[in-house]
């Protein structure tokens, strides 16, 4: 047995160091653990200051002893490599372990042990823990806003139906795969729109707006059969013409009743709210901002100077202002810009504002993808005799969009996280409903529970989205 040098542990006295170090480390963890879980203070006989620092000192010495390079013991080497490379890292690791141990009991007791779940009045919430009863009582308001209780099955049914319809892509056979893009870009949004228009609203809410949607979708479907030579002019003229025909010639005032299905009550958009409104707004903004953004991305790289300057102006304008002022504008300034008898619903104005705002961000992301493509791709497509639209649709955009999946996912995440801002125009989605419930005199003092609840929901949604985008990115990754 060679001489033991405590300042420099080495391999020759491995077991001595190992037992001593592990013991000290174990003691320090045990002390913190007992202190935090059972409120016992093992080192209470020492002066305050020393008793506070003792676990750290003991743990540090212990970690120092077991820091032996190439000890030959696999687990010890792994431990050293991961949390114990040098003194500084050892202290940080210890601190993090202590913080985790210290924070478990209060969190656990607030969330579960001391929390109240039963009952339906404030009286059960007298403990120090969270009052989940509050969430239980208000859950319908948080999910559906002021939507009448008796009608909420309409929202549930629509969302379930849309979810099922949305998952069609997973079950499509190879034969139908090529129609999926058309389905998701044109038909699915139309179905979703009809569901919300007829079913959730059940009234003439979206009416002015719906002409535009119908015109756009009809013209896109017909557009597939137009020779590419005339496509540009076709898309400039036909949608507008269709809109005018629909609005002024086909659908007369008496048809405004069209929005109502028999037996369904009309629910105003003002009554919509809660998490379902978050979903509706995110969904539509997501659908609208993507094509608009793509158009402006192409416009910004267009060879026509006037179109380019207009696109730059559009993008930089929306990117330069905060969303809250855009919503302010849609609430107080936009009605001034329309004819006095022209009515656009608050929710629709909101969706338009958020879509335009996010479209600018989408445009910048897509432009990044377009710029990253090598010139050769453009030249190769042109040499095959492809025109502008054909080249972009079949060669450039598929590759560029693949490149920018993470960026687009980030923009969409930002969109979902921005929806609470609609409180500015008086629409109350889940965060707005929380603020409303918080001021209810019967349920004062439960702000914390509400915010934690909403935070968990948003966190799950956003985290799932970011993981999904990561999977998508991996799936479409091609070696370049």
């Amino acid at each position: 047995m060679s001489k033991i040098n405590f300042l420099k542990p080495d391999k020759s006295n491995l077991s001595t160091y190992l037992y001593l170090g592990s013991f000290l480390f174990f003691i320090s963890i045990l002390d913190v653990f007992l202190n935090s879980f059972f409120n016992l203070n093992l080192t209470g006989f020492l002066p305050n200051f020393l008793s506070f620092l003792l676990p750290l000192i003991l743990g540090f010495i212990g970690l120092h002893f077991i820091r032996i390079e190439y000890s030959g013991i696999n687990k010890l080497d792994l431990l050293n490599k991961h949390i114990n490379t040098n003194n500084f890292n050892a202290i940080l690791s210890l601190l993090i372990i202590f913080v985790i141990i210290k924070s478990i009991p209060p969190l656990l007791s607030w969330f579960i042990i001391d929390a109240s779940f039963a009952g339906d009045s404030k009286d059960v919430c007298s403990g120090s823990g969270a009052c989940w009863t509050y969430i239980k009582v208000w859950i319908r308001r948080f999910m559906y806003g002021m939507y009448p209780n008796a009608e909420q099955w309409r929202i549930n049914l629509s969302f379930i139906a849309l979810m099922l319809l949305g998952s069609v892509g997973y079950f499509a056979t190879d034969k139908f795969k090529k129609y999926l893009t058309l389905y998701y870009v044109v038909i699915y949004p139309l179905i979703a729109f009809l569901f919300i228009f007829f079913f959730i609203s059940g009234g003439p809410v979206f009416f002015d707006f719906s002409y535009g949607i119908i015109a756009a979708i009809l013209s896109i479907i017909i557009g597939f059969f137009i020779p590419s030579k005339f496509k540009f002019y076709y898309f400039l003229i036909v949608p507008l013409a269709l809109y005018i025909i629909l609005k002024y010639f086909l659908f007369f005032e008496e048809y405004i009743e069209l929005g109502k299905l028999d037996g369904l009550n009309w629910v105003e958009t003002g009554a919509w709210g809660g998490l379902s409104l978050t979903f509706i707004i995110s969904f539509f903004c997501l659908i609208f901002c993507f094509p608009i953004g793509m158009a402006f991305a192409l416009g910004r790289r267009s060879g026509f100077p006037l179109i380019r300057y207009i696109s730059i102006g559009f993008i930089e304008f929306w990117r330069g202002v905060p969303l809250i002022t855009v919503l302010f504008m849609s609430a107080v300034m936009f009605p001034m810009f329309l004819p006095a008898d022209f009515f656009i619903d608050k929710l629709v104005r909101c969706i338009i504002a958020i879509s335009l705002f996010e479209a600018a961000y989408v445009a910048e992301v897509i432009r990044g993808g377009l710029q990253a493509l090598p010139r050769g791709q453009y030249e190769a497509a042109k040499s095959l005799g492809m025109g502008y639209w054909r080249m972009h649709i079949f060669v450039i955009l598929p590759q560029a969009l693949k490149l920018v999946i993470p960026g687009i996912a980030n923009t969409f995440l930002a969109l979902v996280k921005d929806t609470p801002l609609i409180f500015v125009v008086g629409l109350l989605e889940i965060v707005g409903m929380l603020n409303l419930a918080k001021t209810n005199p019967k349920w004062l003092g439960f702000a914390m529970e509400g915010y934690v609840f909403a935070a968990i929901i948003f966190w799950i949604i956003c985290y799932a989205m970011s993981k999904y985008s990561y999977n998508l990115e991996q799936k479409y990754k091609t070696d370049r």
Partner: protein
Amino acid sequence: MNFKLKDIIPQLITVLAVIFIFGFFTYNAQINMENRGIDFGYGFLSQESSFDVQFSLIEYDGSHSYFRAYLVGLLNTILVSIIGIIIATILGVIVGVARLSPNYLINKFAAFYVEFFRNIPLLLQIFFWYFAALRALPLPQDAEAIFGVFFLTIKGLYVPAFIWQNLSIFLYSLIAAVLAIIVIKVQAKKVQEKQGKQIPVFYISLGLLFILPLLSFFIGGVSLSFEVPALKQLATTSFIYEGGVSLPPELIALTLSLSLYTATFIAECVRAGIQGVGKGQKEAAASIGLTPNQVLKLVIMPQALRIIIPPTTNQYLNLTKNSSLAAAIAYPDLVLVFAGTALMQTGKAIEIVSITMFTYLTLSISISILMNWYNKRIAIQEK
């Protein structure tokens, strides 16, 4: 001829469409304003505002003009942005570096922080801090002093105020120190290029930065004293702190949530930047005999900063724009004071919203122009 027409027509149609839309809006706006009897103009800016703002950096009360109210809001926005940017940068750099740490625990801890705060809407975080967390603080009379001088209460944070005498001399000494450091740095570079000697510029500058201001205390007659806030009873149950500087809870909640939220994005920028520097760079630098510190200072950081700075500036801009969420918790920023209260009082929707948007627009466009210039300057010249 035909070829040219094909170029012109799409542009013409687009421009006509834009002109048509703008014309339509302007026309309607004119008619609507006529109907409601509102006149258009920016004359109201010099009128008396007659509303009060609870937190202001410059002297302001109801007798001042609307333009001054605008300035108050703008300054408050800038204040919260600057504090937020400083905290977010410090936190973001620490977390970003921690995410690259070989230590498993630190790495995961940083990753947890980023994933947690990034995926919760900022507005929700602001509400959480303001309505839930800061409301749990003690009343002024129950507050315990932190280090004996700070008081964190439900009514805000009270910190001691600095009371300077001969402040200008102190500032002059600071300026002199900075100038001296620049001169020394230039000289050191010359010496190194001529003789190959290295002068420890860092320690010299640190010394100068301490010694010169310290000298000003002894020789220049500068003195500094603190005014510690003291509890004062207004009524039997109503207490308030007097003296010192008070930071309202709105400001605390806002800066806290803004910096915690933005720090996650900055951390990701920092991580991407450091990872973006090739491993070969580090090895090459080490192989020509640079010390680890020199490798970091002369090889890694200059390249990493090139990747880090543009997206980070973007995050600073985002933070500034997000500070407009202050309106939700009644912190008197530009949006609340000007686009909120002033708009309600005057009813000049178009003018006020346009001024507000134009202010933010100027801010972001000037920063992005600056950024483009910087990018061009530091870009690696290839081929």
